[in-house]
């Protein structure tokens, strides 16, 4: 029954999102505009100098900064439909384990992040990178593991601030510090991917860290979500 309920919850969220496209559109527009501005600065001078030594550190950091702020727009809307339609109680009345509720919301956020990245990364590569497509494939596990962590902690905190008066302000303030370890690991792994001189074997440790981060956040959600979402 839980699997069926989980799928029903995810399907409903995606149906709501496809009706309005508000989260995805705002995330993509922000990311693309930010990249256009960065692209201008990059080719105006400073970036070219950084790029000249072949290091991927700066493009990797730029990618994740753009990505995390775009993601914030979507994560902040985790319960937007329930708030706007005043129907959060409808979710809470369902005979569904609260962790299933968390998983469904986190899955929707994860799917939004994956779609965002599927659009953003090729554009970013076009603007800033000079890497082969097969090398860029090594970015997929990095992005997926980082996305899982971001969706998990984002969903948790979006629930925590659900009834806060200034939740749009509180969410980024609470979320960004928690994402710092994840962002450092993801940026470091991405640097290795885009740095033509680096071996891809070096990202294994970062992937392990990202997987551990995801596991911890999922465990925290499993242990606390009932309390977080209840009142």
């Amino acid at each position: 029954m839980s699997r069926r309920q989980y799928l029903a919850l995810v399907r409903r969220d995606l149906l709501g999102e496809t009706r309005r496209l508000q989260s995805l559109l705002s995330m993509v527009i922000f990311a693309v505009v930010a990249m256009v501005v960065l692209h201008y600065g990059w080719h105006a001078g400073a970036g070219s100098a950084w790029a000249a030594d072949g290091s991927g550190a700066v493009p990797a950091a730029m990618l994740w900064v753009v990505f995390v702020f775009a993601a914030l727009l979507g994560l902040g809307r985790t319960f937007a439909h329930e708030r706007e339609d005043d129907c959060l109680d409808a979710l809470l009345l369902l005979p569904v384990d609260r962790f299933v509720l968390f998983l469904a919301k986190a899955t929707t956020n994860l799917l939004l992040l994956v779609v965002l990245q599927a659009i953003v990364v090729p554009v970013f590569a076009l603007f800033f990178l000079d890497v082969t497509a097969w090398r860029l494939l090594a970015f997929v596990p990095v992005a997926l593991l980082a996305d899982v962590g971001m969706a998990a902690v984002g969903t948790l905190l979006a629930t925590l601030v659900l009834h806060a008066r200034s939740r749009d302000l509180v969410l980024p303030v609470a979320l960004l510090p928690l994402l710092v370890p994840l962002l450092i690991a993801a940026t470091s792994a991405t640097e290795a991917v885009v740095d033509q001189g680096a071996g891809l074997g070096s990202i294994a440790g970062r992937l392990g860290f990202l997987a551990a981060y995801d596991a911890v956040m999922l465990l925290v959600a499993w242990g606390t979500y009932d309390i977080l979402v209840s009142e």
Partner: protein
Amino acid sequence: MSAATPGGAPTPSGQGPGGIVVQGLTRRFDRREVLRGVDLSVAPGGLLLVLGANGAGKTTLLRILATLLRPGAGRVTVAGTDVRQEPEAVRRSVGFVGHAPLLYGDLTLGENLRFFAAAYGIGSPAKRIADVVDGVELSLRYDDPVRELSRGMRQRAALARALLHRPSVLLLDEPYAALDERARVLLDGILDEESGGTTIVLVTHEPERPLRWATETVRLEDGVAVPVDGRGDSSGGRR
């Protein structure tokens, strides 16, 4: 049928599979104690009418019965299940109509009901959905987004949602609000149909209309449930 028994233990009539027993229920919000030892019980199939002034705690009581709020202290069982120990089982037994319709505005009525049917694990839901939509006379608006329905229609849609999974306990918070006369008659019909089989707790400011189905009536005063004349004993049943 048992009565609310302020200050004393309720009679055991609410302990059946569809009944409700509330013993010594308290609940506070910050420093304000809204419920201060509520005792009441409703036998399976009974209808408890809950009256009280604004802020008396009627909605708080209903939300605790629905597991939307945790009880502060005391014991609450709904459909024979403790709301603290097995909230999921309680939710399966409860249909709830609150101040908001609890439906997604962007989705059509049909999409909403299909979602709730899946979430409640209703097998082959098409027939059941058609029945409840017919029951609230919204068949013609089945494919319309809920946002485009009038307030009264949304309230009827909320009833359809609440009845969809055949709850054994129905919790209704001011269900007549926002309904026009035709819809009120429709709700009367639903109460007529459900009462006797479904345990109902109905919170209202307008007791005249649902009084005929009430098996007991309490008024919340100063955080306790006081039986209202003539409805507190077994002779005060349906008429």
